[in-house]
């Protein structure tokens, strides 16, 4: 039997900062286990889209449903009541977010970074959280670095810790905001490899990226975002090799 509830359902999301409309009605649907790559020029709204999905930026219009649950609001008869902080924060524990600049907590060790949210937000006993952190660190290839502080690690290692930290919440959805853009070129691959493994294992994810080869490899759907709208979306072989829209063609011609 097939579960028809999409893991992620983004419906007509709009977001403006000041007078600038960054997102102008974005739709996006992912079934469980699917992964999407969002590509597009800088300023297209890729980061804002990801931040709107987990309500780091509340959308001005439109809705986001994660695993069937409406983000940020509760329905009360004929109105949508904005969630209180506590409820919204609980919703976010179902979504893992990996930042471009890692944003590890510099005053905590690698292990402490990973167990902070499971212990603090979900109430997992610290001993259990540590065991799980050790397994996650092994999975991202950093089994022996649990006691290190973020600044003692390379950028690639820091980003792998950040991925482990996001996975520690056992999220139903993972969001990656240009996870390799802040890395030195020789460190990009170690991070991409980890993300590829996750995609292969059937993690539902949305990745904003500039790495088209990587997008082709991991994504079930590639979405070309420009000026806050989805210009074109489709399987990688279609969108990257035979784009229909002139703007997609122009962008790919510039990048490749």
């Amino acid at each position, binding site marked *: 039997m097939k579960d028809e509830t999409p893991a992620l359902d983004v419906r007509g999301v709009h977001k403006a900062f000041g007078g600038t409309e960054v997102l102008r009605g974005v739709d996006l649907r992912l079934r469980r286990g699917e992964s999407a790559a969002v590509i597009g020029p800088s300023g297209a709204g890729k980061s804002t889209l990801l931040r709107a999905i987990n309500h780091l930026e509340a959308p001005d219009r439109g809705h986001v449903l994660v695993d069937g649950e409406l983000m940020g609001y509760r329905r009360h008869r004929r109105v949508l009541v904005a969630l209180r902080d506590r409820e919204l*924060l609980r919703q976010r524990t179902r979504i893992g977010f990996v*930042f471009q600049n890692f944003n590890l907590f510099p005053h905590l060790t690698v292990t402490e970074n990973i167990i*902070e949210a499971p212990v603090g937000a979900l109430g997992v006993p610290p001993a259990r959280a540590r065991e799980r952190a050790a397994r996650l660190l092994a999975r991202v290839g950093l089994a022996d670095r649990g006691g290190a502080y973020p600044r003692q690690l390379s950028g690639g290692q820091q980003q792998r810790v950040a991925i482990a930290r996001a996975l520690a919440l056992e999220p139903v959805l993972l969001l990656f905001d240009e996870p390799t853009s802040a890395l030195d070129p020789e460190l990009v691959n170690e991070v991409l490899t980890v993300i590829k493994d996750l995609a292969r294992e059937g993690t539902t994810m949305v990745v904003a990226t500039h790495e088209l080869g990587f997008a082709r490899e991991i994504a079930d759907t590639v979405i070309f975002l420009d000026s806050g709208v989805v210009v074109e979306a489709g399987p990688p072989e279609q969108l990257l090799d035979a784009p229909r829209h002139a703007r997609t063609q122009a962008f790919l011609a510039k990048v490749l």
Partner: protein
Amino acid sequence: MELGARWPRRPGATLTEARRATNLPDGPDDLDALPRVPAPRPWRWVAGAVGLVLAAQFGHGLVTNPAWEWGTFFDYLLSETVVSAVWVTVQLVLVSGVLGFALGSLIGAMRLSRSRMLRGVAGTYVWALRSVPLMVQLLFWFNLAYLYRRIGLGIPFGPVLVSVDTLHLIGTMAAAVIGLTLHQSAYAAEIIRGGVASVDPGQMAAAEALGIPRLRQWRRILLPQAMRAILPNAVNEIVSLLKSTSLVSVMAIGELFYRVQILYGRNGRVVPLLMVATVWYLALTTVLTLVQHRVERRFAWVGSDGDGRAAA
């Protein structure tokens, strides 16, 4: 010399050439044999010597000038009346320091709130309390009983449920503590707000994205990082508070400065008694500085200042 040869010869050029000649090695092997010495810095020695002479002169004066009356100084330094006054000063600092920073944390958090109303209330509070001189504030609290005879608890603009005489409720010591606390809280609020603002916004974004509860975000993520910016300023404020306690002498509270004034008013030995107060203030500030070093080390995590600090 080829490059130099292209320029026209001027009389001054000979000096440059002479210098360049001394800088030229005789041969590549000779350089290794030469000893290395530091660059000569004669002015450092001159400045150092001037400083030393001035310090020696001052020290000499302290010892030989009879006007300092060191006998009197030592008579009073550890006398019971002075030591008990020091204790009053310490109590004033401790109580209004702790209360001031507790209240300041609240006001600082309000200034960072997303609610415009809370920000407005906190902003006005800081604005008002920083604008009025501490001395004026202290006198206001001291004279509160003239302004409001009774203080009551009840419904705002409605009936009063219980009330007491202001004079009984607020004694001089309480008035001093309230004045110092409120003054301190306004500055503490600004220090805490500045410290929190110095933390990379990405840290808050990460804590939000991980769904960490609000209070825990503050306790585990924001404050430990903000502390590095908060601590030096906070200690500065406490040192400043220590000295501000001398102002409450106008309210006839037996703290250090008031007691010393009483003593020299009686015996006329102004200088040695001022020196007693000075030495005590120096000692208390030294203690605060030592505490600061310990606490700062506690909040220095690995690599927090480039490489060195935490390892040292």
